[in-house]
């Protein structure tokens, strides 16, 4: 499942990279920084990425998840900081 999740998030990040003409986002790894502390996304781009990942997760797993939930917003370290942390967070939501 983790590989699937990584693929979904990578594809959403790559699409965002093309849209923003950002090279770093087009070569995705688990370390790719997303939001805050050197991340390439501003808050508007993050909102779009969240909507895109939620939709792709639904299409693949038939599961409706909300990424910006209370847990995500209250975590000391944001799940949106890099691709790896976002993968882990999605996996956690799908396992709930």
């Amino acid at each position, binding site marked *: 499942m983790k590989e699937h999740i990584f693929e979904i998030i990578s594809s959403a990040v790559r699409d965002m990279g093309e849209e923003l003409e950002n090279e770093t986002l087009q070569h995705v790894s688990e370390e790719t920084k997303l939001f805050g502390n050197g991340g390439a996304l501003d808050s*508007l781009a993050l*909102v*779009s990425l969240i*909507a*895109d990942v939620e*939709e792709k997760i639904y*299409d693949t797993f038939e599961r*409706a998840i*909300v990424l910006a939930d209370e847990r995500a917003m209250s975590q000391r370290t944001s799940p949106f900081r890099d691709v790896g942390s976002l993968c882990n967070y999605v996996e956690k939501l799908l396992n709930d």
Partner: protein
Amino acid sequence: MTKVILITGTRKGIGEALARHYLMLGNTVIGCSREEGSITHNSYRHFCLDITDESAVISMIRSLKKEFGRLDVLINNAGIASMNHFITTPLSTMEKLFRVNVLGTALMMRECAKVMMKQERGRIINFTTIATPLHLEGEAIYASAKAAIENLTQTTSKELSNYKITVNAIGPTPIQTDLIKAVPKEKIDALIEKQTLKRMGTFDDITHVVDFFVDEKSDFLTGQILYLGGVSR
């Protein structure tokens, strides 16, 4: 071009009238209500749900996106009213009014906007009431909840403007629906006296304004609250 339109509260009243209107014009309409739907039409889908149930709302939006591929318009009609003196309004009634009217509307907007953002196109139409600008006695909680919807409309119109989504609201006068069936005639007459144009509203009055907001040509129009009957702030 025909549109894919989601209307909340389509079992009766204004929601049902709007659904039938848009179906007659050849659009695809998705409706929802807590109970079974009352409309049978090839281009109509009904979902039984509570608009404050987050996972039910998300599932509905995802499945309509999957089936129709897009969502052009959201009409947030579903709502509840309760006429009561502020002093004698139970907390449970206050909570319910805010939950359904404000949170239900906001939740539906949030999930539909996620679909519309990707399309870079969308129209959201919310429902307020003339009781809000008139500061109508007996409607303190209902009018406050609708005031929240007005602010939600105006603030989200800014937040969603980058994605070419417009957000506007209509504020109807009383019209003959279940929402006001328990209100005494003298109260309704007194309210109509406060309007500039002194008559009850009709479904057509509402449809006309919603058509205007939905129109492709209305893309330079967002964050507006339009009251019927000549009422203004």
